[in-house]
């Protein structure tokens, strides 16, 4: 039923429809509303049978999910930012063991400096862990992706992370068409584990593997992700047939048919980008958008196909590899090897800096004029940067940059280390 509902609430309701048997989590913004809502449903008996386990840390949350999943239970958790980093070792273990846990990642920046706002740094930090990573564009897609995630995870025995922009989606109240229990039950069969800890048929899970077999075990994990490249669009297609809704899949194109320039991005910023693209289209510019839903596995072939007609690709991403540049842009460049496409990297929205339609329209105009450089930081205030660089040059003990910049901007007052 279509409801005007908070994104976190829509995800919690949908997760409950997936009948998880164990939910464990530790609160961290901006994920907290999701797990609170699931907790209430368990307590009220609306989600049953399900054990909600309060844990003492994110490391424990993922460890409990691993244990639960290994005993054959459908396991769910959610986290963000520092919480994800704190559970990092267990995140790798879940994937390495091939346990089909589903986790919501309410994307948030990583400190220091401490910042609770949205960007994609957290998701990028676990890019190579072996989890499937799906990015939602809207709250409707975030909700729908969870149903598909359980299905995909359990079919392939791989954990799946559903990434949704923290605050921008988790705290937004908008229309979401929630599925009913019967539809979810038809789409998502009971969990049939590939491996299970069962006293009747004892096995050990998590063996020490030496050089004689480690590469093969790793390669098998890679094969499962390659399988996912086929299963993700197939499951999205089935979902479309079952619900009439286009959610999930590998990539989504928008107005790319005759486009000279195609903007590539992930997550909720795609909406603002589409608005900006419509404005540039009205001005006669041939520009389109490619949204990437599946970041891991990276759908190189689908990306190459979708971008093949364009001469210029603008990859706009909410994260970057310090000392290098775009992360998504690097993957896109790999996918376009051997073509004549020019790739422009744009880093935007770090730490919650708003990505405005006005800035995007100006950016796309510059792109059409061929004026974009290889790497651009959208709406970066270079004067602020330059002044801190000067302070560092002028004095050895210039003090902490974050605090200096805040004082410079008048956000905080008081005696600085130096001015």
């Amino acid at each position, binding site marked *: 039923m279509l409801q005007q509902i908070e994104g976190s609430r829509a995800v919690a309701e949908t997760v409950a429809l997936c009948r998880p048997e164990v939910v464990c989590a530790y609160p961290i913004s901006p994920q907290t509303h999701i797990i609170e809502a699931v907790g209430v449903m368990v307590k009220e008996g609306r989600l049953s049978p399900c054990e909600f386990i309060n844990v003492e840390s994110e490391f424990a949350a993922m460890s409990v999910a691993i244990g639960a999943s290994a005993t054959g239970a459908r396991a769910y958790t959610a986290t963000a930012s520092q919480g994800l980093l704190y559970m990092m070792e267990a995140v790798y273990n879940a994937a390495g063991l091939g346990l089909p846990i589903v986790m919501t990642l309410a994307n948030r920046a990583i400190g220091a400096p401490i910042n609770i706002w949205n960007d994609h740094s957290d998701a990028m930090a676990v890019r190579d862990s072996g989890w499937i990573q799906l990015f939602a564009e809207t709250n409707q897609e975030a909700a729908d992706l969870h149903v598909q995630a359980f299905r995909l995870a359990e079919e392939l025995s791989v954990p799946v992370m559903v990434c949704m922009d923290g605050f921008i989606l988790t705290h*937004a*109240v*908008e*229309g979401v068409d929630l599925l009913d229990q019967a539809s979810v039950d038809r789409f998502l069969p009971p969990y049939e584990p590939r491996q299970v800890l069962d006293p009747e048929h004892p096995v050990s899970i998590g063996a020490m593997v030496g050089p004689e077999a480690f590469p093969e075990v790793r390669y098998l994990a890679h094969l499962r992700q390659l399988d996912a490249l086929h299963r993700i669009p197939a499951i999205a297609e089935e979902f479309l047939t079952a619900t009439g809704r286009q959610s999930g899949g590998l990539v989504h194109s928008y107005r790319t048919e005759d486009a000279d320039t195609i903007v590539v991005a992930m997550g909720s910023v795609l909406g603002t980008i589409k608005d900006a693209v419509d404005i540039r289209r009205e001005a006669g510019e041939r520009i389109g958008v490619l949204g990437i839903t599946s970041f891991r596995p990276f759908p190189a072939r689908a990306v190459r196909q979708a971008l093949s007609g364009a001469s210029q690709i603008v990859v706009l991403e909410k994260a970057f590899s310090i000392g290098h540049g775009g992360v998504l842009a690097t993957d896109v460049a790999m996918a376009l090897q051997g073509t004549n496409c020019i790739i422009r990297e744009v880093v935007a929205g770090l730490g*919650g800096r*708003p990505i405005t339609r006005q800035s995007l329209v100006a950016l796309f105009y510059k792109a059409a004029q061929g004026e974009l450089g290889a790497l651009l930081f959208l709406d970066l205030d270079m004067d602020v940067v330059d002044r801190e660089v000067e302070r560092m040059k002028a004095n050895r003990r210039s003090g902490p940059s974050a605090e200096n910049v805040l004082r410079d901007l008048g956000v905080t007052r008081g005696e600085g280390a130096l001015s």
Partner: protein
Amino acid sequence: MFQVRIHGRGGQGVVTAAEILSVAAFDEGRQAQAFPSFGSERTGAPVVSFCRIDDREIRTREPVMAPDAVIVQDVTLINQVDLFSGLSPVGYVLINTSRTFEELGLADLFSRFPRPHLVTCPATEIALASFGRPLPNAALLGAFAALTRQVTLSALQTAIRDHFAGAVGERNAEAASAAFDTVTIYQEELARAAAN
């Protein structure tokens, strides 16, 4: 698209107001998007929330920077926050106060925006009279409905009753109705004064 920005302080129900407004618009068959400004949401700290209402899909995720209406829940923010930044030249201003624009030192707004679009409403007093607590958000939404006609009073009251259970919802719905009437009378007086 009609865009609303609500200014207030943590604890005054600023985020809830945007959500209830979006639900009322949704119930009337429109598309709506409400979200907070994700600042430091401490009690008493300045807080902003947003609501967009449209007849087509709302795709943008940027904060509302060029609102069609600004609602000020806490008048003490006047000297602290740039409340009217980006407001459309034909935009609406609704301030929770028992004082006039002149008394607040905001008479300059008269030359910047259409006079009938500028309204003050003693929403805190109305809330105190209705349910004994200084929570002005439901009353202000009633005043907003009278001022902009973007949602009907009855849709608002339904959304308010859905959000606050039982007697609390009923009292808040009454406060919205009282504020709606106050602003309607205020506007009629303005119109009469203008005609004279």
